[in-house]
């Protein structure tokens, strides 16, 4: 088929198609360098060795712990009017705890999706990715049912994330590259990863110690 080239005049015209200017090296490098500085500040170690399962399990335990710690007890809660007028200290702490747990969860989800996207072609980590996604899915559903989901943007992100996590959770080692690509395309289409990165600013993911 290479021996069936276009007529020379057409080839010459084709070579003029979107003829590129010189690359704006410095301008692009400034943006890349800025992003890389944020990356380094956020993740000091090589990311490929993140223990996915351990990290997800820690988040799950953290979420459950927070839920138990701040769950309503037998005492009657404040009326809606009272809450609006003067938030109880416990309610404020509760809200903060859920917010921190949400940020932690979204940070771990972002790590999983980033690693998953990077392994779409090789497809070597389905079992681990699937197990991690299942654990994150459980946390995700807890958070969707929690006060953390009162914020509209957070709720929409958790709902979209749930779809992606559910798809990854169903992956098997027999999954084809096409299966993985479909999930990746779904992530891209919904902008899930970029939204996660917006919600979880670099370097602000809390740790258990912060709580």
């Amino acid at each position, binding site marked *: 088929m*290479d021996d069936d080239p276009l007529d020379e005049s057409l080839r010459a*015209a084709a070579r003029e198609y979107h003829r590129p200017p010189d690359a704006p090296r410095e301008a692009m*490098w400034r943006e890349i360098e800025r992003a890389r500085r944020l990356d380094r500040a956020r993740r000091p170690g090589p990311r490929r060795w993140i223990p996915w399962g351990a990290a997800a399990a820690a988040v799950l335990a953290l979420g459950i712990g927070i839920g138990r710690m701040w769950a309503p007890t037998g005492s009657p809660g404040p009326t809606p009017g009272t809450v609006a007028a003067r938030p109880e200290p416990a309610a404020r702490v509760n809200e903060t705890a859920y917010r921190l747990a949400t940020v932690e969860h979204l940070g771990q989800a972002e790590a999983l999706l980033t690693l998953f996207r990077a392994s779409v072609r090789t497809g070597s980590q389905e079992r681990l990715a699937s197990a991690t996604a299942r654990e994150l899915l459980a946390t995700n559903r807890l958070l969707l049912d929690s006060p953390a989901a009162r914020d509209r943007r957070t709720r929409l992100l958790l709902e979209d994330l749930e779809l992606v996590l559910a798809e990854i959770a169903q992956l098997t080692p027999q999954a084809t590259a096409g299966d993985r690509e479909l999930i990746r395309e779904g992530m891209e289409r919904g902008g899930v990863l970029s939204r996660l990165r917006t919600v979880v600013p670099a370097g602000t993911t809390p740790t258990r110690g912060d709580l």
Partner: protein
Amino acid sequence: MSDGRLTWNPHAPEPVDDRELIGRVLAGDARAERELYDAHVDRVFRLVYRMVGDSHRAQDYTQEAFIRGFRRLADFRGDSALSTWLCSIAISVTLNGLRGLKRAREREVGLDQAPAIGARPVEADPDLKVRMRRAIDGLPEGYRTVFVMHDVEGYTHQEIATTLGVQPGTSKAQLFRARARLREALADFARD
């Protein structure tokens, strides 16, 4: 403006030792990142610009490709040249960006009125270059990508296949169909 294929040879040996550079980048050497960027940015930018035809978008997509490339560098296994691997990321970023742009335009003007990506206003008496540009813009995404990489930028079918994650035969078939469509669209310019 740079000068098309006359000054650019995509098959030229890469001027730096990529393995050594990759090792330094993974060890956290920020200067090595710049060296790696300098070694490959022109090729990546050229390809992205050819696909989008717009400086700002080409800049955005090239930046994003390198940011993703650095983040994933630990997963680079050396199955292909680093430049090919970077180009595959760049093509993925670019095609996703163009699809998003196309969807946004379709939402704005409706499917029937949506112009092709990069299409310019109609001119009274378009010359061959203008007609060619419109014809290439009008190709389906797969045909256009292969045609631009092969006939415009000079990539081999093997390089295209590696970059796009397809078989070389697929690349050849798409190029064949792209050329056929272009011949048809530009029949009045073709020589007997």
